[in-house]
């Protein structure tokens, strides 16, 4: 499986969409992914409206790549992360994209709501850099190297 995933990524880089309004957090994620073993390309949008436009390839994202993995913050301006998650997971095609909720919230109801909306996993951002780097690497390793994702064809490519 590992081999197949590696073969898979060897064809082209994995597309990751980061939906995050805090530039500091976005940069940290970027920095962490820069050291990733798997070749990846990170796109970054700042709120829920942009995010939905991106995944639907609406202007100005008509040329946007179809993401293989979405990293979603819950507290976003304009359109909240919970709404984004709900919309993604009710779309027959988009719901195939795994969504990792990456947030500062430790609230029980946020965790519960995420899984109710079929979010794929819920991660609380650690306050410590080492732990944060570790988690991003773990996410990268798990989602990009271990699991098998739907093929691009299934995603409409």
């Amino acid at each position, binding site marked *: 499986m590992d081999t197949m995933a590696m073969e898979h990524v060897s064809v082209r880089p994995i597309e990751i969409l980061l939906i995050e309004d*805090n530039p*500091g*957090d976005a940069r*940290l994620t970027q*920095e962490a992914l820069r050291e990733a073993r798997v070749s990846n390309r990170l796109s970054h949008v700042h709120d829920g409206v942009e995010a939905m436009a991106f995944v639907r390839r609406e202007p100005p994202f008509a040329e946007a790549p179809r993401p293989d993995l979405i990293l979603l913050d819950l507290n976003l301006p304009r359109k909240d992360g919970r709404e984004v998650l709900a919309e993604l997971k009710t779309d027959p095609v988009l719901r195939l994209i795994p969504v990792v909720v990456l947030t*500062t919230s430790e609230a029980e109801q946020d965790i519960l709501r995420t899984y109710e909306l079929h979010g794929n996993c819920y991660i609380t*951002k650690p*306050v*410590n*850099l*080492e732990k*944060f780097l570790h988690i991003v690497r773990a996410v990268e390793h798990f989602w990009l190297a271990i699991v098998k994702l739907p093929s691009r064809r299934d995603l409409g490519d």
Partner: protein
Amino acid sequence: MSVQRAPSEPSSETPAEVRVRELEAALAEERQRLADLLEVSPGWIWETDADLHLSHLAGRFEAGTGIAPKRWLGRDIGDLLAPASDAPDPAGAMRAGTPFTSLTGVADSPLGPRHLMLSGKPWFDDTGRFRGYRGTGRDVTEAVEAESRTAALHRRFIEAIESVPASLLLCDPDDRIVVCNSATRRYFPKVQHLLVPGTRFEDLVRAQAESGVLDGIEGDVSDWVAARMMRHRAADLVMTRPHIDGSWVQIIERRTSDGGIIGIRLDVTELKQREQALAEETERAAAYARELERSNGELEQFAYIASHDLQEPLRMVASYCQLLQRRYGGKLDKDADDFIEYAVEGARRMQRLINDLLGYSRIGRRGTGPENFAAADALDIAVTNLQGTIAETGARIDAGPLPTIAADRSQIVQLLQNLIGNAIKFRRDEPPVVRITAAPEIVPEGGTAMARFTVADNGIGIAPEYLDRVFLIFQRLHERSKYPGTGIGLAIAQKVVENHGGRIWIESTPGEGSRFHFTLPLGVQPGS
């Protein structure tokens, strides 16, 4: 008894003789009548001479008075009968020369003083010369004594009702005033003239209502009086009503055995004021408690939000300081490395403080509510959580028998963990020994049954002057390098205990150890 001559010898008498005989017969009859009357009369007849010396006594004198007639005959009536009171007396009337009826004097007798009631009139001879007094007498000692007993009883009754600090107002079955004590006047300040026997109670009530001393009469006075009288007639009344001067009067009305009504009025102003003061005090205390609860809630909310929201920017500061250290550590100069190190360390400490504050503010916000469980189970979990520290320091944890308690399990685990952790942290050079015991706490009757727990250690102890500061949040008594920590542990312990309605306190001997005591509600042992 009259004697009749035989009719066979009527002719031997002259008409004068016949007349004499007839007169004699009439006289005898008159004497007999007098004798008969005296025999059945309870009194007697008497007569004096012109000097008012007693000259004649007949009838039941000695039987009634116990006085032998011979002791009285020939003596001055003034010496024999003393006046009984200020009222006119027989001797006085006789000296004044007037007729008199039913006057009483007091006479000495072997039976004691006797009250004698006399009636009499002066009598005169054919020439109109005053010859003395004559009349009737009667011993009325028993009646006089009975009357005086009644009067004394009445006097005592009046004294008794006068000594009562309340108003007593007695009405007869026709609802007219029979008697009232003088305290009653206070309660009817403007209609005191009506407080006399015979006044209709309804008239008194109406006059009182119209006099304007009562507070709270709304609408028509007649309606008010009608309603008041209805309650009065029910005669089973206890009410407290305000007067216009601010005083409060309690009225109690009860039926008497003869169908009248007794009314009692009491000034309860002081009681009422105290009652109101107490009610106000209670309301103030309740308002204060509500305010305190609200402000505590707000404070907790504030602490939660502040610590939660502070985490976000702090995470940035800390993360990028750490990133700097990671990327550029050892690549700049020694100063840069030091500065980055201080920034990283400061951020790390602040993160710990905020985490602790968040944890502190969460106590009471989270939690599953009280359940019954063995305190020993919570202790086991706390000890397991502290296993690393215990092994590292060679600490020994002893526990006596611990009761079942009714509490939030996770909070109690944290409480025990904080106290035991604290005991181990502030150890001396020897291995720490921590002993946890429990005993029933004496609580006031009706209070929740509590257990008193004690966590005793052999640590460094705390100087007396710091004892009251150990439970303050972020209060540290030692330099950070020697005993690390934010100083949240005991503040959390206190909050947990107080959340459960208990209290926590500490005894300590510096250099020997500390004893933390706290109380928690006892639970119901399963199956008991």
